[in-house]
């Protein structure tokens, strides 16, 4: 490998790692956290069969699963200002990523909740519990175990989708890679390097997933 390229890799690595740690990962984790809250509400509203709200949840999921993530982000960041709603780039990205992942995670949670035998819910009602108590104490602890691999999938996917934030001026890892590539005229090297860092992050997450799943599988049986 010639020395210039080696130097470029070494010099650019920390320049990309820092925004990765300071922006890409926090952006991913915050968006994922928000998406879980959204997903939980959407899933519970559907399972509880609350008239009106249930249809609203279906509508939400239909829209967010049926339109491209980048279009959603552009509508929030570039579109909303024209009707007087200004949102900064970072919150706009968090909102767009959360809303989108929320729709997918809602489906995961709903399916997992529905996989828990109905008899346990009936037994819950007849021991005097109400709907939320049954969910909290009985159904969700079991459903979350079923949902776990799929939710983790969604987290790993979010690490990568967070790069879309670069298209609305957020300075995260990929936007730094683009900038350095533009200055040095070495797009191949820089984008490969960015890809490797994404891969590293996702590898670590996969290891975390394995550990968690092993832990989860110990209890109850």
């Amino acid at each position, binding site marked *: 490998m010639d020395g210039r390229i080696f130097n470029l890799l070494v010099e650019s690595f920390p320049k990309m790692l820092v925004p990765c740690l300071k922006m890409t990962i926090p952006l991913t984790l915050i968006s994922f956290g928000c998406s879980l809250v959204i997903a939980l509400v959407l899933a519970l509203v559907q399972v509880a069969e609350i008239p009106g709200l249930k249809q609203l949840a279906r509508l939400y999921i239909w829209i967010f699963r049926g339109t491209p993530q980048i279009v959603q982000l552009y509508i929030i960041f570039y579109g909303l200002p024209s009707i007087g709603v200004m949102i900064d780039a970072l919150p706009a990205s968090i909102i767009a990523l959360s809303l989108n992942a929320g729709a997918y995670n809602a489906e995961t949670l709903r399916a997992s909740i529905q996989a828990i*035998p109905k*008899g*346990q819910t*009936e*037994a*819950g*009602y*007849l*021991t*005097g*519990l*109400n709907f939320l*108590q049954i969910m909290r*104490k*009985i159904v969700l*602890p*079991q459903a979350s175990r079923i949902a776990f691999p799929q939710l983790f999938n969604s987290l790993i996917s979010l690490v990568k989708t967070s790069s879309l934030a670069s298209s609305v001026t957020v300075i995260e890892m990929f936007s730094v890679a683009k900038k350095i590539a533009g200055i040095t005229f070495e797009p191949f090297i820089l984008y490969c390097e960015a890809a490797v860092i994404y891969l590293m992050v996702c590898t670590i997450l996969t290891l975390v997933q394995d550990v968690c799943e092993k832990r989860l599988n110990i*209890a*109850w*049986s």
Partner: protein
Amino acid sequence: MIRVKNLHKSFGSNEVLKGIDFEVDNGEVIAVLGSSGSGKTTMLRCMSFLEKADQGEITFDEFHHDMVTISRRDIHKMRMHMGFVFQSFNLFANQTALENVTTGLTVARKIPKPQAQETAHEMLKKVGMEDRALYYPAQLSGGQQQRVAIARAIAANPRVVFFDEPTSALDPELTGEVLDVMKKLADEGTTMVIVTHEMQFARDVADKVVFMDGGSIIEQNGAKEFFESPQQERTLQFLRRSSKDYNYYI
């Protein structure tokens, strides 16, 4: 104590309950018999509001409600005094035997945990499961699961306990241990409504037998009278079919 009047229930065009009148007195053990599909389970499920009746009224001590228009709140109030034991146990899979029994006390009734656990241990002891208190349902045999389920159903000292074929999912060897527990509860004066195919048990333990056929109660009588002198031809047929040596009883 409980009186259900004119209970109707259909699933689609299938009329499953055709105007049931049913009464349970305090301390009474009632066996509900009837062939498969006669509506026994549906009757219990309507009385505990797991299934919404199409018509009917229920009186349960101080509560009196139309079974169709009753509110969730009122259902909840009545359920606080009911216990239910399912054919398939339905234990909470993520909770130990002990937690299965305490949850209704601590979460639903806000009883402090130490007190709830004391009660739960007492209940588990009553059903002979105190040494399995920390086992999860998946680690218990069917008979053991059903005994925990009974402990859960009686923990809050309900005024009535419904049993829907509590031993039908069990091997014959495990049936006995569950029936023994139920017999003990009956002897202690627990008010029980038991749907069962265990003729011998019904005969020994029940005060009264209710016989259902095609969505109606067609005969009810004291247990002894019911088995010794059935009034309806249909009842006699059923008894002959369900215990091959029935003719020797009488």
